[in-house]
């Protein structure tokens, strides 16, 4: 590890915090329907949409109506995207003449983009037409992100309302998020990416003669615009197969900083929005502190593991000072690769600028664990916030009794109904990750997809299902995931991770919204102190992480101890 490396990490994270604060306050104004500097421009568009769709923006929905609206919208999105994928050969903007996408891959991809996972079982530049990329995938990059944020807003309103069972209007939240937040930010960021050298064109590819005299076809396309929303919306589905490691997606160190900042920005800002909207900014800071504590611990561990390299490399005569550079880009180095890896998995983004399978076992354990902790560090846009609220509710319940009162979070009592729903939600991840992994680990059809033997192979399976169920989308490269088995089961895991999780969470929100807010007193369990931050971190690790410990022991942990003993896979 170097001072420069750490300085870069600190710099990037500081910029995120600095930008998240004003953005969070801006978003709070937007979502409360207040006037902002963009209103003169966007208000007419917004009301035009409502009139067109017949939405009455002042009509608030209960949790069930809100959830059903979200599910209907998602179902429609799934069907339309599936259709585009299946018939892309007959559609325009297909300069390379790509064929229709086969059914299992189309199913997997549609769910993947719908759930903000952006797991890609295909290579983008060799499978998807420009039309599919722009009208199919990029549209869902916006909408799945906006859906996540809308759901988080509904959960936020549960703490704003007292004795009122409504959570806002899904259509309004969706429209405002897209119009006032995601679109303006994407335009700004796309221009910034252009400036760093990311291409933006409708041309298919160029043929060039390399310095060695060989001919090479370089894929091109509307990359800068895709790249912006891919990062901002914590989508992570790259235009290129190599994702942000590709020089046309992420050409320079500067563009790399921008990518990391962009993917952290909205999720972090939403936590501020939460604090602002519930009227307790300190609560927002506390949640963000817990998120960043664990995230920075993850960054540090990965950076340490990668910078130290491996005894195997040292034995092969590689300068140990360079660390483990396998699968990394020289223009980023170990520090920025480690930061990217931890952030993209803490976030449920899933973009990668280095190959996670090439991380040292310990360095690879971190991304895997961060996903399994529930994607709350600070998590996907929206989904990270509501996931964190569930953890806060659990923390308050486990420890809140210790102050001798019925546990309450932000003045809302946590009772049997909330516990039942919260447990339903937290069961989803272990069920989907461990359940599918255990089957795949002994199923010959699944095992034939593995590139590596031993514990590393098990890590590949675990990572795939963790990534899918956590709606992350990054891959532990090495697994050939484009098979009917993986396409189908990963698709199911993605759907479970998003919808089976969020429905009980929305039911909690509905139940909490209807409760009368209990006033704060000296007897109230404090949820905005450093002590609570520590408690929350502990609960995330113990309730969110412990159940994966046996599986991790058989994967990356044993691989690490074996590697120290000189054995690799």
């Amino acid at each position, binding site marked *: 590890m170097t001072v420069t490396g750490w300085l870069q990490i600190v710099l990037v994270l500081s910029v995120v915090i600095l930008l998240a604060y004003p953005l969070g306050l801006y978003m709070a104004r937007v979502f409360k329907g207040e006037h902002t500097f963009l209103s003169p421009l966007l208000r007419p568009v917004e009301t035009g949409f409502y009139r067109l769709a017949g939405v009455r923006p002042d009509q608030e929905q209960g949790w069930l109506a809100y959830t059903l609206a979200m599910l209907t919208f998602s179902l429609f999105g799934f069907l339309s995207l599936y259709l585009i994928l299946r018939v892309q050969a007959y559609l325009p903007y297909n300069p390379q003449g790509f064929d229709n996408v086969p059914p299992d891959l189309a199913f997997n991809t549609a769910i993947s983009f719908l759930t903000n996972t952006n797991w890609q079982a295909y290579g983008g530049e060799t499978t998807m037409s420009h039309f599919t990329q722009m009208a199919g995938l990029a549209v869902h990059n916006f909408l799945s992100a906006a859906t996540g944020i809308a759901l988080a807003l509904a959960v936020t309103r549960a703490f704003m309302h*007292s004795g009122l069972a409504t959570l806002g209007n899904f259509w309004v939240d969706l429209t405002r998020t897209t119009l006032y937040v995601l679109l303006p930010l994407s335009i700004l960021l796309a221009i910034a990416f252009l400036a760093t050298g990311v291409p933006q064109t409708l041309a298919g590819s160029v043929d060039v003669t390399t310095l060695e005299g060989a001919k090479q076809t370089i894929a091109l396309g509307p990359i800068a615009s895709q790249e912006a929303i891919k990062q901002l919306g914590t989508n992570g589905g790259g235009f290129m197969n190599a994702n942000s490691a590709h020089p046309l997606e992420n050409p320079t160190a500067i563009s790399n900083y921008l990518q990391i900042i962009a993917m952290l920005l909205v999720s972090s800002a939403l936590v501020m929005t939460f604090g602002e909207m519930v009227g307790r900014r300190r609560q927002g800071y506390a949640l963000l502190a817990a998120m960043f504590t664990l995230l920075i611990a993850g960054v540090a561990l990965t950076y340490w593991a990668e910078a130290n390299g491996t005894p195997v490399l040292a034995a092969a005569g590689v300068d140990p000072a360079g660390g483990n550079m396998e699968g990394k880009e020289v223009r980023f180095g170990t520090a920025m690769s480690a930061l990217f890896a931890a952030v993209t998995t803490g976030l449920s983004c899933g973009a990668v600028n280095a190959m996670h399978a090439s991380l040292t076992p310990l360095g690879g354990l971190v991304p895997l664990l961060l996903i399994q902790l529930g994607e709350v560090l600070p998590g996907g846009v929206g989904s990270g916030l509501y996931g964190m609220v569930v953890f806060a509710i*659990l923390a308050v319940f*486990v*420890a809140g*009794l*210790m*102050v*001798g*009162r*019925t546990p309450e979070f932000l*003045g809302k009592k*946590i*009772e*049997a109904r909330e*516990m*039942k729903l*919260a*447990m*339903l939600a*937290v*069961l989803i991840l*272990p069920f989907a990750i*461990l*359940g599918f*992994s*255990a089957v795949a*680990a*002994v199923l010959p059809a699944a*095992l034939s997809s593995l590139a590596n033997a031993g*514990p590393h*192979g098990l890590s590949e*399976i675990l990572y795939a299902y963790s990534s899918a169920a956590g709606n992350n989308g990054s891959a532990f490269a090495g697994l050939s995931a484009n098979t009917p088995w993986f396409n189908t089961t990963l698709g199911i895991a993605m759907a479970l991770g998003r919808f089976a999780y969020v429905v009980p969470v929305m039911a909690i929100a509905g139940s909490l919204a209807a409760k*009368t*807010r*209990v*006033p704060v*007193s*000296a*007897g*109230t*369990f*404090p949820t905005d102190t450093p*002590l609570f931050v520590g*408690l929350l971190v*502990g609960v995330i690790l*113990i*309730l969110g992480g*412990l*159940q*994966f*410990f*046996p*599986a991790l*022991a*058989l994967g990356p*942990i*044993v691989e690490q*101890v*074996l590697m120290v*003993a000189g054995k690799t896979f």
Partner: protein
Amino acid sequence: MSALSNSASPAPPSLFDGRILISALRDAVLKLNPLQLVRNPVIFVTEVVAALVTILWVRELATGGGNPGFSGQIAAWLWFTVLFATFAEAVAEGRGKAQADALRKTRSEAVAKRLRTPADHASFARIAASELKLGDHVLVEAGDLIPGDGEIVEGLASVNESAITGESAPVIRESGGDRSAVTGGTMVISDWIVVKITAAPGSTFIDRMIALVEGAERQKTPNELALSILLSGMTLIFLIAVVTLYGLAGYSQTVLSVVVLVALLVTLIPTTIGGLLSAIGIAGMDRLIRFNVIATSGRAVEAAGDVDTLLLDKTGTITFGNRMASEFLPVPGVAAAELANAVLLASLADETAEGRSIVALAASDYGLKEPDLGAKNPTFIPFAAQTRLSGIDIEGRSIRKGAIDSILKLVGLAASEAPPAFRQAVERVARTGGTPLGVCENGRLLGVVHLKDVVKPGIKERFAELRAMGIRTVMVTGDNPITAAAIASEAGVDDFLAEATPEDKLAYIRKEQQGGRLIAMCGDGTNDAPALAQADVGVAMQTGTQAAREAGNMVDLDSSPTKLIEIVGIGKQLLMTRGSLTTFSIANDVAKYFAILPALFIATYPELDALNVMRLASPQSAILSAVIFNALVIVALIPLALKGVPYRPVGASALLRRNLLIYGLGGLVAPFIGIKIIDLAVSALRLA
């Protein structure tokens, strides 16, 4: 005032009372019935897997395969885990049972004299108390047990209620008014009464009490239910983790035996809190009963911990029931001693507490002794509501004391004509919350006696403690706002309700509840009943009316209004004990992983021994030690579950910091030490 000065609970029956333990052991075995145990999912799962391992052990014995010595020990310790959990519940229940037996005796012995007509006391039939019906009239005479709950319709009697309250001094019960309710099982000591039965046999107060102390009707309280859901959910999560481990291990050709997977499962699921949860609830109710408070539901006890506002009656709770003379304020030209002497004479025959306090003040401040008036032939003028005066006529002196306006009228002065010094004294007394008492002799104003509401010593500190806990205190009084404000500030309450009517109380409670607050109050009169019913915790006095007792959700057998403060503490202690043991139980898992996981995979990956941070002797010993620790920790924590985590009246932040340190951090560290010690013992004894 014992409740005020001493907040410690009365001496509990010893935790390890031999008789209780023996009957608890028997009950613990009976409780193994799976149909009964299914109510406790964590322990039920443990029992199921214990049975499974037992079957495997028998099979290994029969076939000669496997490692029956190891499986047998695991099976045994799993059964112990279940048994320790049922034992904890049985011990908690056992402590209530002795009390229930005594109560039941009073019920079975009772014989009722049912009157054919309420008016005719001579004509009655002797029937068993259990045959009484609602609305029957019974005659109860000296020496009889009152056969059921009811209202006195005729007569007056002194009643010994020690069967319920433990207080042997008899109380007077009479028809009409607030003291007409009688409780079945109590005994009439003298005189006779006619009682109209208001509770059917089986649902009387004593029946309810028996059911409560026995825990027969115990339902999970809301909070307990929520906690069980959390524990069941965690059990499911770990079930998934352990079952899938079979497949994940299969990937590396490791075949895990069912016995070790079961061991992993049982050590991970929250058996500690799962096993102690119901014992904690029962012990909480039991603590309340030992404070002579009967709660009609566990829900009320929990609500007590959540209370935000206490409505406290001024009289008897915040101040002593009676006003006391605190100073003599003579008008100019009258010596203080002269005033003292005059008012002493006027109070000699006044047997009220106020009168006695005047005599006492004259003696302490002016050294005046009670004169012997036998020879002087005095005429005592008793207090009359019409004149609002009392006094004495003796040797030509006519001394009167009484309300200010009455005294002024007597001396022929309008309020505005009173001497300025007199007026000032009256005002000063009223302003400080006292009651001025005018004194005159033969038509001459002597001065004013300051009668003061005396705030109980130590009550201000109690209120400060409550405030630190986040609980507001509201004083309810019939006094005027000025008087009320003065006493409120002296006692340190947060708010007061002056000139309060029962309707005002009810309205105040509703208003607070709409703001999301939980309210506790106590009351005894029938007109308190609506407010008692509305309050989240309504404590009725045992001496109160039947209506009040039915409206509240707790009955205080000692009829002590300060009990509310203790009740809140007990409620909080109950919740804290649950929370602390839950945190402890969950934190324990970390160490257990480090004990069992390396042991599971050591055959396939010897390198995983790096995780064996406790350096446990062998894989078998590690697994066995973790299972033994898991079982023993339940027993070790039974005393804490029954006694409760000590409660301190400090703010939530301080409580959290303290308990998180002890039970959170302690829960992380303790099993590392415990498992290591057990491992040393297991390997020394060559058990594994």
